């Protein structure tokens, strides 16, 4: 087998043993319809042109690859930041939201539903729905609505309805449950704009493809600026869309190592963190088979992270595959380490990172002996400023 085929899996709905389609039968036809429509849109130059134009003129792409000189000096090697925080709405989530909203319009769906944890995906979805004149309803756990009250208001300003979810742990997992229940009820006119590389096929592949613009730009930019590929890519991993978006274009570059950073939270006990590869085992949640934090009876565990965007018990199935075949390494950093990184990057570079992205920054702070590193700065930290202030006042 050639080099290309090592990471390719023959079955498009699975990544090795992972992924697949685990949904109630009612959702099978809409998923098949989505897969077909997405395949056609991908091959349609007019669709691609419109997406590229919106990514450029509306979302502000390409985002810069910025050499962080003072931070580099601090860690002792060259660090580049892929500035997804400069995207319209403040995070990489807009890349996928634009792609899927254009697709929904093409499929004749007039209504969009989405889930959100930190609110970034909800805001991105509400934004593209305003742009494309689509009805928008966002499901959000009541605990997350409390933590991210300002983002709730932003979504409402953009014309979306935010529906509180008061079940289970009242966070992202429960918001996805409720969005899936809505979709199973309103399949005729509704598209579920899932925000990460999760869920049933074709979502993990489709969302990855919409996000892989990050890596395509970064690869071109580092070659332009340095004439060489990086030796390491680092990104935080919640569901895993910003990380796979950066990694995907580099997968065949064997000299480039990749590290995904999960949320280590407050400790190693189940319920204290969201490090699926350290406390989880394979299982099925929200339509896909992947690593899952669960108890010995197969009940899904609650999770903890200071960062709402990483606070989720499962991980995109392609990550499970890339880990098993040894292509990507996964590790975790604690809440405390992420907070320290948040502070250091703000002070050294004048860039306030999202707490999610601060996990990737924290990995570099505790890792030496590197040469040329790209960190995916997946979002900006404005949404987290209040959390940080509250912590300091305690």
């Amino acid at each position: 087998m050639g080099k290309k085929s090592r990471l390719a899996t023959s079955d498009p709905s699975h990544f090795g043993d992972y992924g697949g389609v685990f949904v109630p039968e009612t959702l099978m036809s809409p998923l098949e319809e989505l897969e077909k429509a997405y395949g056609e849109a991908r091959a349609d130059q007019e669709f691609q042109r419109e997406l590229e134009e919106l990514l450029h003129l509306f979302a502000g792409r390409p985002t810069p690859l910025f050499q962080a000189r003072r931070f580099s000096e601090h860690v002792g090697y060259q660090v580049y930041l892929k500035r997804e925080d400069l995207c319209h709405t403040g995070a990489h989530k807009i890349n996928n939201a634009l792609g899927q909203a254009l697709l929904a319009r093409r499929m004749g769906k007039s209504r969009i539903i989405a889930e959100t944890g930190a609110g970034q995906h909800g805001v991105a979805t509400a934004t593209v729905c305003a742009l494309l004149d689509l009805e928008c309803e966002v499901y959000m756990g009541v605990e997350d609505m409390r933590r991210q009250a300002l983002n709730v208001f932003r979504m409402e300003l953009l014309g979306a309805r935010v529906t509180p979810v008061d079940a289970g742990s009242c966070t992202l997992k429960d918001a996805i449950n409720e969005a899936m229940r809505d979709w199973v009820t309103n399949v005729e006119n509704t598209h579920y704009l899932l925000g990460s590389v999760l869920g049933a096929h074709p979502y993990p592949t489709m969302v990855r493809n919409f996000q892989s613009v990050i890596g395509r730009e970064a690869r071109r930019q580092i070659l332009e600026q340095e004439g060489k590929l990086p030796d390491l890519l680092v990104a935080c991993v919640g569901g895993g869309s910003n990380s796979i978006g950066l990694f995907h274009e580099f997968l065949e570059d064997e000299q480039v190592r990749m590290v995904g950073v999960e949320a280590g939270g407050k400790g190693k006990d189940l319920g204290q963190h969201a490090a699926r590869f350290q406390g989880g085992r394979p299982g099925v949640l929200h339509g896909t088979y992947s690593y899952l934090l669960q108890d010995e009876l197969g009940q899904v565990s609650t999770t903890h992270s200071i960062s709402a965007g990483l606070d989720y018990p499962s991980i995109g199935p392609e990550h499970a595959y890339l880990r098993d075949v040894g292509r990507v390494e996964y590790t975790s950093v604690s809440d405390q380490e992420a907070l320290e990184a948040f502070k250091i990057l703000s002070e050294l570079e004048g860039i306030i990172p999202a707490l999610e992205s601060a996990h990737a920054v924290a990995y570099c702070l505790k890792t030496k002996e590197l040469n040329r590193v790209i960190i995916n700065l997946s979002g900006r930290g404005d949404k987290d400023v209040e959390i940080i202030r509250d912590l300091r006042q305690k």
Partner: protein
Amino acid sequence: MSRLSEIFARNKKCFIPFVTAGHPDLETTREIVLALAASGSHVIEIGIPFSDPIADGPIIQKSSFQALRHGYSFADYIDLIRQIRRETEVGLVFMTYMNPVLSYGLEKLDREGVKAGLDGVLISDLTPEEYSRMEPLEALDTIFLAAPTSSDQRLQKIREVSRGFVYLVARTGVTGRKTDVEASVPKMVKRLRRYTQLPIAVGFGITSAQDVSKVWKYADAAVVGSAIVSFIEAHRSEADLAQKVGEYVKKDLISAP
């Protein structure tokens, strides 16, 4: 011939109630299932609770979360079947989600389930496509969902993996909300009938004796879930709960008006 097939062969119109195992507790579930069997039920669906029941509406969700607080294991549920089977020949089917089954082991469920007297299993989020990638069950009947949105091609796939009966979802959406039986069921049953000779059970939003008798006009069995779970919830602290559930099913769900 499996017990389920015999039951459907013997009874032209079957009644299939659903209860959540462990709601309010397993001992009471045992009593309720026996009362249901004595009150004219032919097959009983026993819901094995899962933390993230995406196919269920608020009533069954709530019963699941309450049951989960007991911390019962899958072996406890198998034991429940063993105890019930000592006293009745009613059909017994587990209805659950993929993850608790994966955690216990699909093959183990097949082996231990049939030993205890379980007849079949319906896993709401297991599609025929994914099931075909697994080692198929040998002993238990495998019941799959058919939906209003299922294409002809999908009905074919569903038939290929189904044993015992096919569970036709009467409308899109989750369990609990009311269904207009006359408007949706006849056409769907007719379409599904083209693909399978297996008995067809219709469920989701069937809440009254009128609904049940309408379903019986077109299909082989009617499934009632949320209405019964809701009745159990309303009377949960009463001493003669099981007997009351039996009377409710007999009087309010099975007797034609």
